């Protein structure tokens, strides 16, 4: 090993150079204040190390960037820690540089011949800020996306070059894939090369010119005796500082991981980007200027500050380093520092109050995440695009919120929000949280879904268009989602295809693409209706007898078999088959008339419903003129109906006396003892009611003449005798005796005929 090192030293001389670098002598005043440059370098090394490790897993494309950061955060061992370390190192390097710069400034260490060390230091500060600005965009969460949009917008405001620079950085006219790749390459390559060169320059120059002896005039440096060395005396201070700094960074990384907001959503206009606290002074500066001069605050003044910093060693030529001999420089520096700090403090006051949650509301926040409310609702952005953003809409009434959760349809009949029936404590917590949400609230951290949502779910209008994707490949939904996932929304709003006619036509769809049904419905969904009736060949052969058998007796989900048929079929649909081919039962000879096997018997046996499975209920009436079979209460009603229209009964019933007598073994109640005498007065319907039982010739049987007497009887009754061949007075007597006397007194004739 030693031989190898010796050989390497002989060939290159690098080992002795390395040794000389570390053993360089330092002036006596160099102490704890001088460790910040080295600590900045250490932080930079940590950033390179962690950044390099992150680069192994990061994918700089908009559809994968966020997923890869989530992968780092949630799936990689130590991934979250490494990312947090990168984040905290990046946050700490800026204050470290500023402390370093202030130390150099107040010690007067930038003075000749070290002016270029100062200049490279300022350039390094700018590069580090550049790292911050580009690294900000890489996680591609909401903050990254909107922050980048806003910053590029600010850059555009700079006159002349602003727009060109912003467009170059953006790589086009919108922030997107090209922008992200540019920011990535700037972050990991361009700025790294720059930083490497500048650090080398900076450090090697310090090595060449030595560390400034504190408080010594510029031209008296040569006389200072150098009492200590970089290694080990000063290195020990640096090492202690490095351990403390590392402990701080590691502690911060463990207790407060790097934030990751929801995935960037360019459509999410509800998102409010908030500036980070260390740029607030710039925001305050901008506020001093009218809108058309905004660039003075956002660009000119910060740029002037940078230029001022760069030229400090060239304008301040005072050779003194003792603070009390450089009052002008120190007071100017202090003034600028105080202005910036003051502006920042003012800006912090304008920041919105951070959200304060009571323990109950905090519990409610967990319930909010647990129930995945965020998949529909945003909180000032960040949620799903379905429901309204909860950050909007002002103060809410707890009672209203509670009722809305329990029954959203009562609030809005068209809503698709499912009703939530929670345990009382969960509900109270959730209500407390929702009431608490205001314009400054933020979406709580959302755990990653497993598996990761595909990129399509973040596309513009995904929610509106998902039905088309479902149609293309319904199986792809069920790969991740359970059938009841669809029903969470669709129990309140059916898919547009499921309209009023849907049940009639669903079978075709279901037969052609069963996977379409399976996308939302569980496999046993069809069975819930179809378990008794599958329309296979067997079913078609048996449906007549099944209908006849079960028609009204069995019920599924409260529906009889006929009602189930009518969900899809109309009575006419039977005729599609049965118009030519009658059902077997109808093929009996004389089906219409035969009392033993004819339709009447069948109808009585199986109930009208079995007729109704093909025929409209009115079908019987078209012949019978009556609901058939005779409706309930017919027994007592039939005399009235029969009296009105006896012909109706006669269509089926043979009105021989014995037909009625099967029931009416005793004469009807109307036929009282004196009925024979009274009946002419009691019969008001021209004898029709008599005919019901007594037949068409009811009157003639006794009267031998139409009763009651037809019109013109006055003129025609005289001819009655002649028709019978009874002539003369005897004939009249005979007629009177044989016929008229049945009802009329002999004297009745004398009312007209004088004897």
């Amino acid at each position, binding site marked *: 090993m030693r031989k190898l090192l010796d050989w390497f030293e002989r060939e290159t001389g690098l080992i002795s150079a390395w040794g000389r670098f570390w053993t360089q002598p330092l002036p006596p005043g160099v102490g704890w204040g001088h460790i910040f440059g080295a600590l900045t370098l250490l932080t930079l090394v940590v950033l390179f190390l962690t950044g390099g*490790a992150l680069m192994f897993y990061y994918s700089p494309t908009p559809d994968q960037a966020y997923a890869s950061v*989530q992968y780092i955060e949630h799936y*990689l061992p*130590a991934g979250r820690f*490494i990312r947090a*370390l990168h984040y905290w190192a990046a946050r700490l390097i800026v204050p470290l540089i500023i402390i370093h710069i202030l130390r150099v400034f107040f010690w007067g260490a930038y003075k000749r011949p070290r002016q270029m060390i100062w200049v490279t230091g300022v350039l390094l500060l700018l590069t580090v800020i550049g790292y911050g600005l580009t690294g900000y965009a890489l996680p591609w969460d909401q903050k990254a996306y909107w922050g980048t949009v806003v910053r590029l917008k600010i850059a555009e405001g700079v006159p002349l070059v602003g727009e060109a620079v912003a467009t170059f950085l953006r790589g086009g006219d919108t922030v997107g894939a090209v922008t992200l790749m540019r920011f990535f390459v700037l972050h990991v390559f361009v700025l790294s090369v720059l930083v490497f060169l500048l650090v080398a320059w900076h450090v090697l120059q310090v090595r060449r010119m030595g560390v400034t002896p504190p408080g010594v005039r510029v031209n008296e440096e040569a006389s200072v005796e150098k009492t200590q060395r970089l290694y080990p005396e000063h290195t020990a201070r640096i090492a202690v500082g*490095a351990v403390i700094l590392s402990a701080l960074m*590691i502690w911060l990384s463990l207790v407060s991981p790097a934030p990751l907001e929801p995935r960037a959503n360019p459509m999410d206009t509800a998102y409010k980007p908030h500036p980070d606290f260390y740029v607030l002074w710039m925001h305050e500066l901008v506020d001093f200027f009218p809108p058309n001069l905004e660039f003075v605050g956002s660009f000119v003044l910060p740029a002037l500050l940078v230029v001022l910093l760069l030229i400090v060693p060239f304008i301040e030529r005072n050779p003194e380093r003792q603070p009390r001999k450089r009052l002008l420089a120190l007071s100017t520096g202090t003034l600028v520092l105080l202005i910036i700090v003051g502006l920042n403090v003012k800006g912090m006051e304008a920041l919105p109050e951070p959200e304060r949650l009571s323990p109950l509301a905090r519990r409610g926040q967990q319930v909010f995440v647990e129930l995945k409310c965020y998949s529909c609702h945003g909180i000032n952005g960040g949620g799903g695009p379905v429901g309204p953003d909860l950050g909007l809409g002002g103060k809410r009434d707890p009672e209203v919120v509670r009722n809305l959760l329990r029954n959203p349809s009562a609030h809005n009949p068209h809503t698709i929000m499912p009703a939530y029936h929670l345990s009382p404590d969960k509900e109270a917590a959730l209500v407390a949280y929702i009431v608490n949400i205001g314009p400054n609230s933020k979406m709580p951290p959302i755990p990653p879904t497993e598996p*990761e949502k595909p990129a399509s779910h973040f596309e513009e209008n995904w929610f509106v268009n998902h039905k088309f994707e479902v149609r293309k490949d319904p199986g792809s939904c069920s790969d*991740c989602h359970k059938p009841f996932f669809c029903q969470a929304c669709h129990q309140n709003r059916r898919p547009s295809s499921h309209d009023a006619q849907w049940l009639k036509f669903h079978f075709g769809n279901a037969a052609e693409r069963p996977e379409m049904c399976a996308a939302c419905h569980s496999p046993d969904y069809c069975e819930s209706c179809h378990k008794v009736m599958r329309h296979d060949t067997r079913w078609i052969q048996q449906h007549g007898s099944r209908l006849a058998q079960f028609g009204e007796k069995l019920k599924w989900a409260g529906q009889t078999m006929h009602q189930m048929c009518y969900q899809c079929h109309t009575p006419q649909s039977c005729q599609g088959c049965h118009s030519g081919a009658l059902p077997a039962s109808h093929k009996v000879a004389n089906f219409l008339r035969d009392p033993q096997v004819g339709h009447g018997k069948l109808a009585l046996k199986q109930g009208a419903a079995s007729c109704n499975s093909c025929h409209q209920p009115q079908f019987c009436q078209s012949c019978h003129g009556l609901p058939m079979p005779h409706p309930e209460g017919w027994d007592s009603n039939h005399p009235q109906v029969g009296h009105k229209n006896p012909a109706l009964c006669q269509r089926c019933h043979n009105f021989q006396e014995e037909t009625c007598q099967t029931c009416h073994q005793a004469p009807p109640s109307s036929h009282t003892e004196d009925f024979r005498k009274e009946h002419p007065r009691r019969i008001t319907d021209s004898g029709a009611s008599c005919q019901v039982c007594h037949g068409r010739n009811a009157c003639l049987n006794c009267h031998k003449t139409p009763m009651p007497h037809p019109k013109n009887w006055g003129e025609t009754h005289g001819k009655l005798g002649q028709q019978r061949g009874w002539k003369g007075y005897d004939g009249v007597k005979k007629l009177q005796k044989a016929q008229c006397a049945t009802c009329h007194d002999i004297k009745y004739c004398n009312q007209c005929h004088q004897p």
Partner: protein
Amino acid sequence: MEQRLTRREWLATLVKALATLLAIVYSIPTLVMLVVPAFRRQKNPWIKVGSANEFSVGEPKAVTLSYQRRDGWVIRTVRSTVYVVVKPDGSLKVLSNICTHASCAVRWERSRNAFFCPCHAGYFDAEGKVIQGPPPRPLPEYPHKVEGGLLYVRLESV
């Protein structure tokens, strides 16, 4: 002078110790993040093939499976085909459709009652055993289970 040298030595030891500590503290999580995931094996999930009673004795039935597979931070939908065979005793067998010879996809030839590999004319019988041709091994069989009337298969890299 003696004392001063000791102090310098002590400081040098301190520096070396602290530097080593920092190097360890920073490099261990970094290495863990880079090395460990590479050696993690993904557990193969049970994939639903379909209703167990839709397969009948006789002809092997090809089923195209579609399932999600994590590839780093990308979730891919992978499709692959298996043949479900019902043995005469009614038990099921799920066969890969990849020929063991040159990894071509085999298909069921009804006329010969055998799986046929078009690349080098290999033949397998309905249970995947080699009948003729160059394949060195029978068609690989995947583990399967039937739960609640549904057939699941676990695809293993073969």
